[in-house]
């Protein structure tokens, strides 16, 4: 294995591992805040138990996410010093703001998790809300650095050096809005459905605890709202890519030949040699419409670009199909869920619907991973689009395959341990006690 491939895989697994935890760390606080609010408002003990049960999971996942996020900030320099040497001064600003947001998030989490009975109950609730707000902010800030790699801005590049650096212009690069919003909505969708699926699964396994009923309603509502926003957000992201990175769009759609009334390709195995897509269903005109809001618009194919600038078409196309497929499926399930919640409440805990939700549980995260594969592999061979190749950014330190092996091992261990710890929490959840006298007195005063 070459050092380049090893380094890319190390980065990929570091990012792939972290993004799941980051999404959970961003969104779970909001779910908790809703349950927490309902407890403080209605004194419903089930909402208290749910808040406590969720917060235990969040504590475990947040800690793992904090350290895997640290790993990413180290890996930037360890793997890509050529990139960091030039990009560091240009995109350091969002990273430093993200550092501040992350700091605030860690403090708010500490206050929320350990502050029961130690501060004003509504201030304590607010600390929980702050965790979510800071989490989403740091996510949005750090995506700015990634979107800059797709749409570099705020500098002039001459003879392999950056001049006239403008960190503010780099920060507000063109791709930021579409990428950051797409990622944020995706996180809400994925976490909402993942949590709903877990509680559906527990219900099916016979944990008929009232707490799970509340949990399922909260998480499914959040997941469903955002699952319906996702296709719109995805559409704007695709239009953005069509304009700025036509080669990435061509790879996503496996669109080899420039054409008007370009078809959308569903499924299929792209063949880079023959420049054909085997076994695909083509619907003419749709790609032109989606990319440029015009059924007869010309969409550039891969043939327009030199071969050495092509990203790996097969990987990008398949990942894109997986992402869009799951997005559409979850949007469908969201519609069904809303129909059930509005008209057929008794179906919500029907066996078949719960099985559907349980099956959907991992899908959102698979879509997020696929989406990152699309954006990262789709940018290859560039690390800074049109400016610097990934190979140029690679560390000169040899033996990166050992680095990869170490981190594959480490992340497998961490994944197993985290999953196992969460499972133990779930098994324990029926025993989660309702609020005791002291807590009730703290939250509601003498009257209760």
């Amino acid at each position: 294995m070459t050092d380049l491939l090893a380094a890319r895989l190390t980065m990929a697994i570091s990012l792939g591992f972290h993004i799941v935890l980051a999404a959970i760390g961003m969104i779970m606080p909001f779910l908790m805040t809703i349950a927490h609010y309902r407890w403080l408002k209605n004194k419903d003990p089930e909402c208290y138990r749910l808040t406590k049960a969720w917060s235990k999971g969040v504590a475990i996942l947040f800690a793992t996410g904090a350290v895997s996020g640290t790993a990413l900030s180290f890996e930037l320099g360890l793997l890509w010093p050529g990139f960091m040497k030039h990009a560091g001064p240009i995109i350091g600003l969002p990273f430093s703001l993200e550092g501040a947001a992350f700091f605030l998030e860690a403090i708010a989490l500490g206050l929320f998790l350990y502050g029961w009975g130690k501060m004003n109950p509504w201030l304590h609730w607010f600390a929980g809300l702050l965790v979510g707000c800071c989490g989403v902010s740091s996510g949005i800030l750090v995506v700015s650095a990634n979107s800059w790699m797709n749409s570099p801005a705020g500098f002039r590049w001459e003879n392999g050096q950056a001049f006239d650096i403008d960190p503010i212009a780099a920060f507000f690069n063109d791709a930021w809005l579409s990428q950051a919003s797409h990622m944020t909505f995706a996180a809400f969708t994925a976490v909402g459905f993942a949590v709903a699926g877990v509680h559906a699964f527990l219900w099916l396994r016979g944990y008929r605890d009232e707490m799970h009923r509340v949990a399922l309603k909260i998480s499914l509502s959040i997941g469903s709202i955002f699952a319906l926003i996702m296709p719109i957000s995805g559409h704007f992201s695709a239009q953005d890519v069509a304009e700025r990175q036509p080669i990435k769009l061509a790879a996503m759609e496996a669109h080899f030949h420039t054409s008007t009334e370009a078809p959308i390709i569903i499924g299929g195995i792209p063949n880079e040699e023959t420049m054909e897509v085997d076994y695909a269903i083509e619907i003419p005109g749709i790609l032109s419409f989606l990319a440029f809001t015009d059924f007869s618009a010309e969409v550039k194919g891969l043939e327009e670009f030199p071969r050495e600038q092509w990203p790996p078409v097969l990987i990008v196309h398949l990942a894109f199909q997986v992402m869009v497929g799951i997005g559409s499926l979850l949007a469908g399930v969201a519609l069904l869920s809303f129909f059930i919640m509005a008209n057929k409440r008794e179906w919500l805990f029907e066996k078949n619907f719960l099985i559907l939700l349980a099956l959907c549980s991992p899908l959102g995260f698979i879509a997020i991973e696929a989406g990152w594969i699309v954006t990262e592999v789709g940018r290859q061979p560039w690390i800074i689009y049109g400016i610097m190749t990934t190979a140029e950014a690679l560390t000169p330190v040899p033996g990166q395959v050992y680095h990869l092996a170490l981190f594959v091992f480490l992340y497998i261990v961490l994944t197993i341990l985290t999953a196992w710890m969460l499972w133990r929490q779930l098994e324990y959840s029926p025993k989660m006690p309702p609020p005791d006298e002291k807590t009730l007195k703290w939250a509601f005063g003498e009257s209760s």
Partner: protein
Amino acid sequence: MTFEIVVFFLLASLFLYALLGGADFGAGILEFVSPGGKDKRFRELASKAIAPVWEANHIWLIIALVILFYAFPDAHVLLATRLHLPMILMLVGILLRGSAFTYRYYDVQQDPKTFKLFSALYHVGSLMVPLFFGIMLATMAGGTMAPESASITVADYFVSWIRPFPFFTGFFVISVFAFLAAAFLQGETKDPDLLSLLDKMLLQAVLAMLICGCLALISAFFYAPLFMNMVFKGWVGPASFIVGSALLPVYFYLKKSRRTWLTRAWASSLLFMILMGFLGVMFPNFIVFADGSVLTLRSSAAPQVVFDTLAVALLAGSMVMFPALYWLLYVFKIKQPEP
């Protein structure tokens, strides 16, 4: 002006990481190394003390790293390539400590086998981070790295830091962190048994600090002559050594009074003197190479606009961060805990 602000924040975050993060690592070190660490009551006291704060304390490292790669890209790139291995190993320690601590703290079923596994990972992580942190600092100072322009061989990635001076410095950092933990935990309990246990640990840590500190200096004398030259060139190094040595006995005198915050501040000032001594010796160098050439923060600085934006971001950020940090410490450390 903005250059100085940025350097101040870089050093301040380094100090706060060593102080607050260091004390958290020290709890894991004491648990593993000190004979008293096996005591269940000590473990529970230490875990309860660090659980709400360790994540916030850890972020000072991220802030230092981000300042480094935004404002001093050449320095960051040199560290990440030349000290690639110790940096990876420090990262492994960070991953193990943070996750294993949380798993152990939150495990609902507490069976001895799982407990042993998580404890082992937690201990290894707690030792690795200060060890490799110290190794990196000493290698930057020791004058063993091949110069910037030299062509690098595979061996260079090992021989610059697998040496006595960096390792003894690493052990010294371990003992300093253990000292901070023992000193800070004094204020967390009123149980006389635990307090006498902590007193013992404090003595052990101070002893280890003195031994490792001497060994680091002796090894520097023999194996890092460039560093030793710098030590005796100015007055800052010897002066902070003398002041630091003078602070230590006073600490033991103060400790008798059991005035929590005074003794904690005194222990912190010891770390401050150690860091000041090191930085004073190094100033203005960031890395000293084998041929005597140096890299300074000034020479690796990014364009001015970076410092202007970063200084504003840091000042604005600190308006939020420091009150928030105070809030956290107030709720868990300052306000009297309920009986």
